[in-house]
C-alpha cells in the first residue's frame, strides 16, 4: 500500500512567490508525479486569489481545498505568516470534495445537507471514513450546518471541522476550493478507501466557581443565566475588565475564561467562546446552547492545554489500532495559540512525541472546531467546540 505525502511551506513576503515555493516544496517532497489532493493553508497576509493561481500554475492536482488561518502548524515549527501546501497521492485513499455557498438568509441546515450530498457525489460509492470541513469562521452559528451534515452522513459519522480564521481581525476569512478562493462558504473533503483513521479532540479547561443555570437561550445565544442577563456572569467575575466584552469581538477575557456547558455523558465540558455580547447582555456563541444546562466559567493554563493535546494524540493513536500513522492533520483553536504564545510549539512537540518525529504533520489555527469529543457513550457524536485541539491521524 503506497501513500505519497509531501508538505511544502514558504514564508516569502510575496504571495505568488510564497505559493509557488510552497507548492514546489510539496511536489518535491511528494516524490511522485501525480497529486490526487492538495490541501492549502494560508495566513491572511497573502492575496488568496494570487496564491491559488500560483499553486495551480506550479503543480497539477485534481482536487484542492483549504482555507485561511491565523497560523500554520508544521512538524518543526509554528508559523504565523506563510503558505503551506499538503500534497497527497495514493491509489488506496479516495478523496471527494465539495463546496457550499452560504448567504445571509441561507437555511444552514438545508445547506449542510446539500453540501454533504455534493461531497458524497464527488467521492463516489466507496467506503467513507471521515469528513473534513472548513467553514467561514465568521458565520455566527455553525450548529444548523452541522446538523444538516449529520442528517446525510449519520449522527455518529466522524466529522472534523474548522472555522477558517484571520488572526483576530474577524474581517474576512477565505475558503479554497479548486482554483477559487471565496468567503461565506464551506469546503469539505471526504476521505475513504483502504485507510485507517484515529480522531480525537480535547481542550483542557476546567470549571471554576459555582455552577449556574442557563435560564433562557435561543439557538447560539445565551440570554439569561440564573435569571440575570447573561453578561452578568463575566461582569461579576471581572468587574472593571468586563467593559472590554462589549468593545471587542473576542476579548482576552473570553479567550482565557470561556464558558463551559455540562453535557450529560460527555467527559469534558462543552466549551463556548462568547464571540459577541449584545447590548441587552445576551452572549452570542458559535454553537447552540441547550436551555436549562449547567454552565461554568472555565479556567485553563499552558500546562493543561499541553496535557490535553497529549491526551488527544494518545487517543487518536489508540484509535489507529496499532498502525503507524502516515499523516497527522491538526486543527487547533487560534485562542490556544494566543494563550500558549512562545510555548505553542511545546504543545505540538508533545503530540510529535506520541506519533514519532518522522510522521508528516500539518495543521491550522481555527475559529471554532468540530470533532467527536470524548464521551461515555460507545459511539461519539461530533460537536462544535471552541478552544480545543483536534487531531486526525491517517494510517
Amino acid at each position, binding site marked *: 500500500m503506497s501513500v505519497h505525502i509531501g508538505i511544502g511551506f514558504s514564508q516569502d513576503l510575496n504571495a505568488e512567490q510564497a505559493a509557488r515555493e510552497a507548492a514546489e516544496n510539496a511536489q518535491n517532497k511528494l516524490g511522485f508525479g501525480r497529486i490526487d489532493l492538495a490541501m492549502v493553508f494560508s495566513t491572511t497576509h497573502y492575496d488568496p486569489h494570487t496564491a491559488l493561481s500560483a499553486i495551480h500554475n506550479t503543480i497539477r492536482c485534481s482536487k484542492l481545498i483549504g482555507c485561511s488561518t491565523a497560523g500554520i502548524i508544521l512538524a518543526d515549527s509554528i508559523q504565523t505568516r506563510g503558505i503551506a501546501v499538503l500534497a497527497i497521492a495514493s491509489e488506496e485513499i479516495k478523496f471527494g470534495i465539495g463546496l457550499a455557498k452560504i448567504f445571509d438568509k441561507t437555511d444552514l441546515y438545508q445547506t449542510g445537507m446539500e453540501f454533504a450530498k455534493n461531497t458524497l457525489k464527488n467521492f463516489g460509492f466507496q467506503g467513507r471514513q471521515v469528513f473534513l470541513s472548513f467553514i467561514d469562521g465568521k458565520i455566527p452559528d455553525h450548529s444548523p450546518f452541522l446538523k444538516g451534515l449529520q442528517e446525510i452522513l449519520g449522527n455518529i459519522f466522524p466529522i472534523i471541522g474548522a472555522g477558517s480564521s484571520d*488572526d*483576530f*481581525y474577524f474581517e474576512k476569512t477565505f475558503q479554497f476550493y479548486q482554483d477559487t478562493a471565496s468567503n461565506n462558504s464551506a469546503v469539505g473533503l471526504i476521505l475513504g478507501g483502504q485507510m485507517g483513521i484515529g480522531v480525537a479532540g480535547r481542550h483542557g479547561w476546567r470549571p471554576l*466557581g459555582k455552577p449556574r443555570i442557563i435560564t433562557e437561550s435561543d439557538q447560539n445565544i445565551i440570554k439569561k443565566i440564573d435569571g440575570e442577563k447573561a453578561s452578568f456572569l463575566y461582569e*461579576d467575575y*471581572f468587574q472593571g475588565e468586563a467593559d472590554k466584552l462589549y468593545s471587542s469581538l473576542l476579548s*482576552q477575557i473570553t479567550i482565557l475564561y470561556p464558558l463551559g456547558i455540562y453535557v450529560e455523558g460527555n467527559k469534558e465540558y462543552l466549551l463556548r467562546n462568547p464571540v459577541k455580547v449584545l447590548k441587552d447582555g445576551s452572549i452570542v456563541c458559535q454553537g447552540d446552547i441547550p436551555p436549562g444546562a449547567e454552565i461554568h466559567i472555565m*479556567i485553563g493554563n499552558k500546562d493543561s492545554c499541553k496535557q490535553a493535546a497529549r491526551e488527544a494524540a494518545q487517543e487518536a493513536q489508540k484509535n489507529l489500532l496499532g498502525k503507524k500513522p502516515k499523516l497527522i492533520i491538526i486543527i487547533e483553536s487560534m485562542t490556544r495559540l494566543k494563550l500558549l*504564545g*512562545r510555548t505553542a510549539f511545546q504543545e505540538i512537540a508533545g503530540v510529535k512525541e506520541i506519533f514519532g518525529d518522522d510522521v508528516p504533520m500539518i495543521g491550522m489555527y481555527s475559529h471554532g472546531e468540530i470533532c467527536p469529543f470524548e464521551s461515555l457513550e460507545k459511539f461519539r457524536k461530533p460537536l462544535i467546540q471552541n478552544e480545543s485541539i483536534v487531531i486526525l491521524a491517517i494510517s
Partner: protein
Amino acid sequence: MENPDIIISILSAIILSLLIAVIVFVQQFHKSQESLKKLKDSFERLDEQAKLIVKTDLELNKAQEELDKRLNGLDALQKTSRRITTTLDEQEIFQRLDKSMIINFGFEKNLVFIHDKTGKLQPRLNLGFSDKDVLTIIAQIEKDTSIINTLKEGHTISSANAQHQRKEFLMRLLNSNYFVLAPILTKNGMIGIVFVGNSAYAETVTESDEEIVSILASQIGQATENARLFEEAFRASQILETKVHERTQQLASALEDVQNISKSKSEFISSVSHELRTPLTSIKGYASILMAGKLGEVPEEVRKRLEKINIHSDNLVQFINNLLDISRIESGRVEMNMTKCALAAIIENVHDLLTPQLKDKNIEWKTDIDPNIPDMLLDQHQAERIFINLISNAIKFTPPGGIIMVKAHANSQVVAVTVSDTGMGINEKDIPKLFDEFYRVDNEINQQVKGTGLGLALVKKIVEAHRGRIWVTSQLNKGSTFHFTLPIQ
C-alpha cells in the same frame, strides 16, 4: 363497627402516627433546608475564591504575555543587531534589515525613513504600504512639526502614550490601530524615523514594545553612523592614497634624477681620474729619472724639490685610486673577489703593517677576537682596506700613550667588529656626515694633517659591498668606536 371504642382507638393511633410523621417530616425538611443553605453558602464562598483565582490568573496571564512579547522582541533585536552591525555599507544595512526581520518583532507594518542631504525624509524600508501611501505619510509627518520635534527630543510616540488627537491622526495616517514611532538618533541628532504598527486585534502596543522599537532605532542609528564614518574614512584614505602615489612618483622621478646625476658624477670622476693618472705617472717617472741623476747631476736644492714632487705625486695617486675605487664600487664595476678568509689573520696582517706607526706614538694595541669565528667569504684585499683605514684613523686621532682595541664576535649570522680608540672623539653633529665623500671633521688634527675625506666613504662602500652595515659611536675627549658587521655566509 360493633365496638366504637376500638374504632376510636384505632383512629387515635392513626392520627397520632400521622402527627408523629408530620413532626418528623417537618424536622427533616428543616434539616434539609439547613443543609441546602449550607451548600449554597459553600458555593458562594467557592465562587468568591474563584473570583480571587480569576483575578490573580488574569494578572499572571497579562504578565506572561508581556514577558513573552519582551522575550520575542529581545530575540529579534539580537538577531537584527548581529546582522546590521556586521556591515559598514549603509545601503546594505537596510537590505539586511529585511521585512521578515521586522515581522519577528511582532508587527505587520513597518517604515524606516532616513533624512537625505537636503534634510528630506526618504523611505529606506517599507512593509505594508503602497509607494503612494509612503509619500503621503512623509508629507504629513514632515508637515506636523510637533511630531517631528517630539521625536527630535528623543521621545517615542505610540498608540499607548500619544494624546487622543495625535493618536487619532497617526492611526488614520498609518492605517494602524497600534503603532510606535521612534527617532533614529546619532551624535549629530535625528537622522530618521522608525515606524512599526499593527491593525490586528491581537497585537496591542505596550511599554516593552516602545522600548524594543526604541532600541531597534538606536541600533539602526549606530550602524548608519558607523557606516557613514567608515565611508568618510575610506574616502579620506583614498585621497591620501592618491596623494601618496603622486608624491611617490615625484620622489621616484627625483631619485632617478639623483641617480643619473650620481652616475654622471661617478663617470666624470672615473674619467677625470684616469686622465689625471696618466700624466701623473709621467710626472712621477720623470721626477724619478731626474732624481736618479740619469740626465746629469742634480743640485741639492733641485733634488729636494724633486723629492717633494715625488711625495705629492704619490699622495695624488693614492687620492685618485681611492676616488676610482669608490666610483667603481658605486657603479658595481668592481667585482668582489670572495674567498674563504680568517678574519683574525686579516687583523693580524694589518696590525703588522701599522706596528711602526703604533710604536711611534706609543699606542697600546689590544684585541678581543672570538676564536670561534668561522672562515668567512670576503674579498681579502678590500677587507684589509677596511681595517687599514679604520686603524690608521684611530692612530691619527689617538694621543700618545692611548689605546686602540679591536674586537670581533660572531652570532649565528654575522660577525660584529668594533675598532675603538681613546682619542679626541667626534662631535655629535658630525656623525651623520662622517661617511660622506670628501667630508672632513673640522678639528685641530685635521687642520694639521692633510687628508682627502675619502677613507671612511670607501670603508662604508666596501662594508656595504659585503652586505654589511657600519656606524659609529663617540664621546668627545673619550674616544670613538667604529662598529661594522660582515655576514658569515
